[in-house]
């Protein structure tokens, strides 16, 4: 299947000399939710801005549904909706008017029913005649989404959609994003909340210092890079790890009451059965066991550390 968005070797250096993107290549598939994860200043917003035509790039090409974003900008921009990071709305305008304006700006004919549908879907319908300045922060963010959806885009970019949003509203936003995906919209969101990527993304791209370190299915990523820890609580404290267990690279807790074994879930043999047998041979009695899997956060921190 042809990707809906295809980025090839894109680089961007700002006037001040800051290199924001370094030869980024990325294909985005139709209908997926891709989370671009990265620390502040990694280049996430620059990448989105370039695709949407807000900034010019130095090199590389970007196509949307096969159209070049520079040469065929009218086609590509009609397909794209952008929800910016900052809340940028005209304070004195009403919700309905501002959404209608966006639809017109993107060259679509008037369709009050469609705007009504979006506003209802985003729980904004009863505020349609309110001036933007009268709305709460969460509502304003939803108005931005309504504006971005007003021209029925196929690809929606959400730049930090839940930055500074409370937990409940964040979950609402995730719900909205999933609904949009089920209506056939491809969604690319940037975030520095790993929890967010973990909760809603199908695929995760990690950006650091202008480089796309990887872009993989979330589950594959976690499986591939995921390490699992097995904590074994002991009946009686150990002073040191017996030499027979050296190969397992166990870590003994300070109080000597538990051992920690780290293994890779991606491997065929995890060595757990053998470890238990060897523990028994060494006369060590087990009181309890716990396992824990490394989160996307740990994977992310490791990746960013490696690239630095």
């Amino acid at each position, binding site marked *: 299947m042809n990707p809906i968005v295809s980025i090839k070797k894109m680089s961007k250096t700002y006037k001040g000399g800051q290199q924001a993107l370094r030869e980024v290549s990325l294909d985005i598939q139709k209908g997926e939710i891709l989370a671009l994860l990265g620390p502040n200043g990694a280049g996430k917003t620059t990448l989105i801005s370039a695709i949407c035509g807000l900034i010019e790039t130095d090199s590389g090409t970007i196509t949307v549904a096969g159209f070049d974003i520079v040469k065929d900008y009218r086609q590509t921009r009609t397909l794209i909706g952008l929800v910016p990071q900052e809340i940028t709305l*005209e304070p004195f305008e009403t919700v309905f008017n501002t959404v209608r304006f*966006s639809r017109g700006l993107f*060259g679509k004919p008037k369709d009050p029913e469609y705007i009504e549908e979006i506003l209802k879907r985003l729980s904004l319908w009863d505020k349609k005649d309110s001036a933007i300045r009268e709305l709460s922060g969460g509502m304003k963010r939803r108005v931005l989404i309504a504006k971005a959806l007003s021209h029925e885009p196929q690809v929606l970019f959400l730049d930090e959609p839940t930055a500074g949003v409370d937990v409940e509203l964040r979950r609402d936003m995730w719900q909205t994003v999933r609904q949009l995906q089920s209506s056939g919209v491809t969604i690319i969101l940037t975030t520095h909340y790993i929890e967010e990527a973990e909760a809603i993304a199908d695929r995760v791209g990690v950006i650091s210092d202008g480089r796309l370190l990887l872009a993989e299915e979330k589950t594959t990523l976690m499986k591939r890079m995921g390490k699992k820890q097995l904590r074994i609580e002991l009946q009686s404290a150990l002073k040191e790890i017996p030499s027979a267990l050296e190969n397992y690279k166990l870590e003994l807790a300070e109080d000597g009451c538990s051992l920690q074994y780290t293994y890779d879930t991606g491997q065929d043999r995890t060595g757990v059965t053998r470890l238990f047998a060897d523990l028994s041979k060494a006369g060590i009695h087990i009181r309890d066991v716990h396992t824990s899997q490394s989160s996307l956060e740990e994977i992310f921190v490791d990746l960013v550390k490696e690239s630095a």
Partner: protein
Amino acid sequence: MNLRAVRAIYIYEMSRTFRTLAQSLLSPVLSTSLYFIVFGAAIGSRIQEVDGVSYGAFIVPGLIMLTVITQSVTNAAFGIYFPKFIGTIFELLSAPISFLEIVLGYVGAAATKSFIIGVIILVTANLFVDLHITHPFWMIAFLALTCISFSLLGFIIGIWANNFEQLQLVPLLVITPLVFLGGSFYSISMLPPLWQTVTLFNPIVYLVSGFRWSFYENADVAVGVSLAMITLFLGLCLSVIWWIFKTGYKIRN
């Protein structure tokens, strides 16, 4: 051509005007009426006719020009500066529209607004003095060309300005003095010869003169020269805008 986008911008900008009707339309009418009371009735009654026209009637074209030029510049400058200031310009830049369409929408709305104000002032003036328009077609043409040219200039200022202070700077320090010294309230033949020559470097002189000619058929400079000058000014503004959009000056960075 994305005409729907042009229309959307135009309607959006015009609706802002109607939302702030009092300050948009009422204040220029009020200030013009004050000019008429002070210059037309109080002082004007003691001034002899200028080129066969009563002083009250003589200043009408100049007054309209004064307001229309100032309004065009400030409206268009504010129209494009405001989205830049609050950040909504991202939407314009990410929309499938060309810069020409952006200019058409914003400048069209600003010019329409100034044109309406010009007509309202004309009607208001008619209440104070006897007006006679000899060349209505040319009167409208001069008015429209002035509204468009100075709205283009305002658009350029709005793109250039980094803060509200700069936004006010050009209208305050350049436009207002030029309009006042451009023969709005006097015929340049009243000036000493040296100042008459200096005044000819003021582009506003040609506008006011041509506009006044369409009313009373008397002008400080030949009407053809007036027309050429305003066309030149229009062309100059268009070239600057073309350059701004070609280079992305202060927009895409």
